[in-house]
């Protein structure tokens, strides 16, 4: 096609941003080369992959449909595709005007359809494969989303025969839960079973060996767990459905048995971004594709930013990629480090670098010979790292509220060094975010946490600032959800008469139902109740159309009731945050439509009250039950964008891939003491679910038992979590926490400089200034 020199010259002309030497090594590598790219935060990895793809197309002549590029999240996949297309078209325009390129070549270039490049998440690619390259006579599988799969697992697996109450299973799951009964309920049991199910496939567990090798105390529990999962599997299969785990497993099985040859023959190069979050199942799929490409496989990632062990990620697959690739292809990939950070100030980069090297033991699990991040050529020294530590969380919320309000609604915040932080004239609250381990507004004991107090504080100021934190509360405890859920219950089953006949409803679920009902009754009894709401609710409760010459229909979609009630709640139909809650309700109804006998409908047949009651029972159990039980909740994919005019509180996981001019990181607002209950969030004494599951299952996989202890892995994950949080800001990083967790204080905390030997490395020389 064209020379690399012309390609890169045209790119620089169009984008005005030349790649650095390391980036060029990625872009320039030959089409058949395999690359192992270790890219720190803000080092332009997406740009480098996009340019490599474009170089493969325009220089090496690889047809776009021969390139498969995947990444971990839908958002990241969209961004990668956008860059390839956006820059690709810009380059094509430039090529078309460049007379130094022979006209024959320009004509060839003009015919290239860049859109044909295959991008997406591994799941979207698998879905595409199974629907477009299916065998004759077979059906494309129907995807069971999270709502359907969790409902089926609950109904067919745990509720069947009251298995959720089985003592052996209960003890087994309690161990996975960490041994404490805090927050241990039917929803968490369901989630634990789901994790076990997923991990079984993600780690390619030899399941029968796992079952037969149980210690005597656990044999029955494993057997019951197997019944739960088998029934769940059957429920999916009989409906022609697959969940995401089975989807990937199915694709792997077909690939290894030589199917999808039409697709495999087309693929010439494969690139995978965010490879640090890959699991064994996905790695196996990628290696099958890579075989078809004769090893032309590029992986990009950063072990320091691996956050998804709880979703099955095995970071060692990335850090050991060199050897794993070699064992498949008999050669080593070229290792390239991207180290120049173009995002942050020098102070922030320096702080992040020291943090990454703070703990000696952590260094042994990082990619070998990893250099520190370097700052970009124009990066300013920047504002020092700031720290706000207070004696109690109320004071912290007050001062943090003041900080935010002064910057975004006032004349700026004066720092001790005389500088003032001001918002941009065109900026707004969207330029800032509070990152927390958990954005929950209440602790499991019901105490108000920093996210709640900041919300209240900002709301009380003039002008008031609203907070965007859809995951701030367990959904079933949000007042709006309680009232709405209670109204649905009272309309469907006034007084809970039918509810008492639903077999196997766990106590915590019925307790929530009762709380919802009480809230709804209070709401309707209030003089300020919206006019018309009570009439609608009473009409539904009595199944009385309240219209002369008419009767109640024999079958009514539940959505009729939902949308009827939504009419009275502007917070649900006019507020983007409320829309997210409504979406959870409607997605759960859709799940009922797909898997229920009554397809999400309310039957009213006076001649057959048993049938009518059965339809309501199904809705209580399969629609409202999973929401009340915390089985389903607000999903990250429901939150498309953050509003610019609200103060966003997000988890560090949600912040992955994002950057903010001002980033506030909660490093310990909860930690007043060295209490063991929150040790896992600051200074772990043991592992949590993903680590326990690894120890449980990995001996029955080709990965074998982990070499590091659960506690060490828990420490490693915490360092990674705060490394990600600390590397989000562009200009200002503010650490906030309780005074007790101040460096060198009484509470050990990896986020404030402790290494795992319980020595605070920051104690002598604070890496921040106090405000």
């Amino acid at each position: 096609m064209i020379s690399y020199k012309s390609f890169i010259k045209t790119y620089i002309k169009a984008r005005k941003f030349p790649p650095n030497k390391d980036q060029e090594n990625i872009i320039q590598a030959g089409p058949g080369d395999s690359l192992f790219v270790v890219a720190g935060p803000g080092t332009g990895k997406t740009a480098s992959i996009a340019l490599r793809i474009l170089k493969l197309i325009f220089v090496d002549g690889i047809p776009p449909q021969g390139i498969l590029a995947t990444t971990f999240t839908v958002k990241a996949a969209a961004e990668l595709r956008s860059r390839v297309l956006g820059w690709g078209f810009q380059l094509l325009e430039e090529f078309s005007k460049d007379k130094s390129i022979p006209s024959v070549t320009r004509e060839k270039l003009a015919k290239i359809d860049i859109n044909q490049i295959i991008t997406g998440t591994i799941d979207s690619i698998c879905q595409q494969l199974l629907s477009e390259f299916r065998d004759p006579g077979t059906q494309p599988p129907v995807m069971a989303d999270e709502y359907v799969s969790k409902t089926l697992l609950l109904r067919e697996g745990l509720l069947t025969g009251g298995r959720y109450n089985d003592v052996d299973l209960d003890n087994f799951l309690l161990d996975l839960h960490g041994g404490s009964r805090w927050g241990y309920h039917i929803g968490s049991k369901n989630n634990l079973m789901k994790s076990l199910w997923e991990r079984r496939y993600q780690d390619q567990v030899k399941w029968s060996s796992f079952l037969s090798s149980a210690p005597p105390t656990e044999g029955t529990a494993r057997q019951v767990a197997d019944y739960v999962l088998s029934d769940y599997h059957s429920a999916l299969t009989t409906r022609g459905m697959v969940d995401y785990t089975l989807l990937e497993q199915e694709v792997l099985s077909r690939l290894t048995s030589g199917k999808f040859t039409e697709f495999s023959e087309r693929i010439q190069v494969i690139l995978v971004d965010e490879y640090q979050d890959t699991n064994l199942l996905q790695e196996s799929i990628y290696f099958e594709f890579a075989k078809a490409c004769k090893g032309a496989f590029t992986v990009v990632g950063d072990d320091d930013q691996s956050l998804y062990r709880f979703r099955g990620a095995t970071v060692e697959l990335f850090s050991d990629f060199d050897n794993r690739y070699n064992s498949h292809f008999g050669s080593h990939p070229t290792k390239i480090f991207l180290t120049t950070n173009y995002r942050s100030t020098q102070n922030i980069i320096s702080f992040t670098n020291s943090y990454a090297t703070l703990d000696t033991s952590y260094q042994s699990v990082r990619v070998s010979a990893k250099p520190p991040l370097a700052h970009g050529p124009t990066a300013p020294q920047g504002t020092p790292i700031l720290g706000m530590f207070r004696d109690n969380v109320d004071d912290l919320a007050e001062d943090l509220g003041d900080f935010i309000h002064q910057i975004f609604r006032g004349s700026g915040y004066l720092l001790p060094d005389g500088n003032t932080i001001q918002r941009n004239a065109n900026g707004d609250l969207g330029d800032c975010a509070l990152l927390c381990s958990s954005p929950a507004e209440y602790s499991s004991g019901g105490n108000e946490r920093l996210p709640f107090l900041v919300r209240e504080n900002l709301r009380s100021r003039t002008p008031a600032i609203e907070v965007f934190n859809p995951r701030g509360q367990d959904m079933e405890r949000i007042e709006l959800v309680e009232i709405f859920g209670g109204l649905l219950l009272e309309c469907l089953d006034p007084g809970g008469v039918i509810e008492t006949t639903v077999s196997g409803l766990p106590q915590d679920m019925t307790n929530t139902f009762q709380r919802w009902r009480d809230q709804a009754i209070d709401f309707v009894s209030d003089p300020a109740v919206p006019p018309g709401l009570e009439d609608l609710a009473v009409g539904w409760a009595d199944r009385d159309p309240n219209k002369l010459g008419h009767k109640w229909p024999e079958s009514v979609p539940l959505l009729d009731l939902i949308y009827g009630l939504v009419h009275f709640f502007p917070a649900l139909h006019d507020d983007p945050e409320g829309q997210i809650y409504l979406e959870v309700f409607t997605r759960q109804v859709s799940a009922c439509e797909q898997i229920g006998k009554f397809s999400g409908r309310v039957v009213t047949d006076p001649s057959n009250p048993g049938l009518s009651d059965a339809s309501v029972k199904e809705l209580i159990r399969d629609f409202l039950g999973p929401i009340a039980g915390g089985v389903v909740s607000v999903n990250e994919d429901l939150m498309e964008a953050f509003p610019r005019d609200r103060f966003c509180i997000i988890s560090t996981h949600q912040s992955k891939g994002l950057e903010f001019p001002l980033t506030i990181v909660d490093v310990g607002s909860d930690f007043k003491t060295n209490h063991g209950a929150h040790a896992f969030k600051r200074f772990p004494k043991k592992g949590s679910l993903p680590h326990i599951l690894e120890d449980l299952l990995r001996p029955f996989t080709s990965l074998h038992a982990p070499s590091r202890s659960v506690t060490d892995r828990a420490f490693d994950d915490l360092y990674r979590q705060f490394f990600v949080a600390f590397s989000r800001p562009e200009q200002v990083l503010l650490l906030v926490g309780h005074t007790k967790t101040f460096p060198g204080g009484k509470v050990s905390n990896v986020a404030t400089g402790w290494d795992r030997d319980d020595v605070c490395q920051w104690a002598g020389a604070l890496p921040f200034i106090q405000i």
Partner: protein
Amino acid sequence: MQLSIRPKVYSLPPYSLTGDLLGFIRCGLQYRYTRIGQLPASRPVQMWFGQFIHGILEESFRRFDEERKKGTINLPPWPDSELDDICDLIQKRLAAQGLFPWTLELEKQGRARAKTAINELGPELFPLIHRAEVRLTGARALPLAKIPVPYQFREADRYEMVGVIDVITHVQLSDPLLKKNKLVKKIVAALPKHPPDKFEIIIDYKGMRRSTISGKGGTGPNYWKIYDWQVQTYAHLRRSHEDSLPVVAGIILYVNELHPTRRDLTELKKEISSKLTDVVPDSGSKIEDILDKWKRRDPVPSLPFDFRLDRALKVVTISDASIDTALNKFDNIVATIEICRGKELQHGRVLSSWDKNATDGGTCASCDSRTFCPDYTKENSPKLPAVKI
């Protein structure tokens, strides 16, 4: 020091021709709730039927094609048992996606239309099909000049246009097997000039009646033109595919016309008398006589296949100029959607941010947001479910 502004997300928004652009044209607010918010419709009748008929035709062709690849040409009509088998399969597939016909009547109607489409249209259509369900993508410049700066919430200079062509037919006029093909004859007759010997036509199935001409008879969106633009855009995207032949025309195939119901015939008679439809029986013809004499409560009369096929087909000729017009129309719609999205992000409100269209009574009557939609005034509080005794 002054904070910078958080960089906008770099993303080329993908816009599908049917789900996004046609959905937004129907009503912006409804589009916000159902497409962006993914709120399901309480009565997705049209969606069920549309997907049912698409699924049926795809599966039928797949079966025909599998036999053809083995050397056997097994054209419809097929026995009822096989047709039922196909209908059962597609119905099951849709049910697994949460789509149901809801009433027995709709299910019977859907099946009857599907069987007619396979048995009567299939023999003409299937031999012409080159590919079915063809995914299309293309990029267009994002019309930034039409989006006020405060509402430009993303960093992008293009948008991605995506669509799926139901069927691409390859036609070789010299092929003796196609000499008697009614579809080919009608297509060629509708073209302004004689096409090249080898060409392709793209076909888009519509699970609905034929649109009224030039949007007459209503104040809402002009679907007569909008569907034309859709096909023109498909043609534009298809041209970049390596296996494409010259795309001379697109066909909009109004499947319901192949098996009209009483309601369809009532509408047809109204449209004929008010000159709102372009395919009418010849004056003094037997068909005209049948329609004149037919009363609403009479059984549906048997109309000749040729007439029904004429009603079902709308041939849209393709040219560079017509494609440009269509693309510009869609660019404008994309700009409007982007503005609405930007407004919602800026102001944190849904109702005031999105364009509403309360001109199409049918769309509003089945919309689940109708009682709180500020522009729809006929119903301002939810009603209790009721049926006449």
